[in-house]
């Protein structure tokens, strides 16, 4: 038995289906169809023309993830900034308030600055709270300081070692470790 060719199958049904082409919307329906499509396209592309702050706000409104990311970044900067502020000064600053008798010792120990020599003691002004006094802050290099200046018993010892200051010398030191 030879199979029926496709074009001969279901003839009545095909005619009925073909008539569905005449099912149409009311006249003039498509008059404005394309203009509506173009209007929607242009409306969607319009956000680029808005001011930067409007686009920025729209980003927050529409994308919670973006807003969260912004918050995290800003918060991160705040935390880092606070951390940096709390840890300052990062150098060892020694504020010396010495009686007049001890000053020659320090002066004698501090060599005259020489371009070739490594400074053993760098004296830097340390601003004090405004009470009219001033002090000299010293950055001490234990490796190049004269012998005896640093004592193993922790007079000015390694960080973390308890300091023992001799009488007459008041040290205030802060480390950032």
């Amino acid at each position, binding site marked *: 038995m030879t199979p*029926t060719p*496709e074009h*001969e*199958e*279901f*003839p*009545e*049904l*095909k*005619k*009925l*289906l*073909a*008539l*569905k*082409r*005449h*099912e*149409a*919307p009311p006249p003039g329906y*498509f008059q404005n*169809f*394309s*203009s*509506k*499509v*173009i209007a*929607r*396209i*242009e409306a*969607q592309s319009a956000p680029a023309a808005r001011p930067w702050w409007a686009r920025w706000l729209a980003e927050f409104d529409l994308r919670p993830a973006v807003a969260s990311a912004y918050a995290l970044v800003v918060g991160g900067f705040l935390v880092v900034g606070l951390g940096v502020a709390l840890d300052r000064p990062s150098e060892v600053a020694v504020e010396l308030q010495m009686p007049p008798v001890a000053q020659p010792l320090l002066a004698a120990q501090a060599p005259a600055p020489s371009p070739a020599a490594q400074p053993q003691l760098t004296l830097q002004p340390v601003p004090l709270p405004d009470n009219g006094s001033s002090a000299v802050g010293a950055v001490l290099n234990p490796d190049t300081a004269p012998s005896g200046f640093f004592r193993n018993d922790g007079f000015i010892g390694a960080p973390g070692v308890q300091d023992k200051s001799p009488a007459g010398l008041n040290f205030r030191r802060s480390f950032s470790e």
Partner: protein
Amino acid sequence: MLQALTLRAFGGAAIPKTVATEQENTAVAEERALVQRAQSGDTSAYDELVRKHQERIYSTLYHMTANHEDANDLAQEAFIKAYAALKSFKGDSSFFTWVYRIAVNRTINFLKQRKHRAAMSLNDLDFNAENHPDLVALVSDRTPRREAGLSELQEKLNEALQTLSEPHRLVVTLHDVQGLPHDEIAKIMDCNVGTVRSRLFYARQQLQAQLSDYIKGNR
């Protein structure tokens, strides 16, 4: 398709193949130029493309959804989506096929999400179809139930179509309603021609079975 239209315009007389091919090439070239202009941001060119294809796209979506409002929304969305993706259109297929595919995929997704659709737009058969000789013959002479009126037949056909799965309804719409060839349907549905043929046969079988009281078939 263009060749078929040309045949009808000439009263069915055969026209030289070269003329038809030349006309087709011209149409393709014009469309290609419009697409290129639209890709560079010319919305007036895209407007022209929409006007060219709006009715056919709309018609297919209407027959898939059986609802004019849904078809309208889906057709607009398809053209908008096509514009957004226009830069990715490489010209491997015709613009019409490409947009058709977007529209069809969008509609199938819509139908899968739609749970129930109450009203179907039924009374849309225009005057020409009501008096079409084929339909008159179908209704008055050849139906076993001679009292079946036009609206009842239309209603039954629409109901029967809605019982088909989306792929089967689509293939019947594209081939038997829109008149597209198998190979073009295969491109739109992203399947091979054999699949198109088998789906078409199955769908027709189902429709024939449901409409057996109204139409006769040879199967």
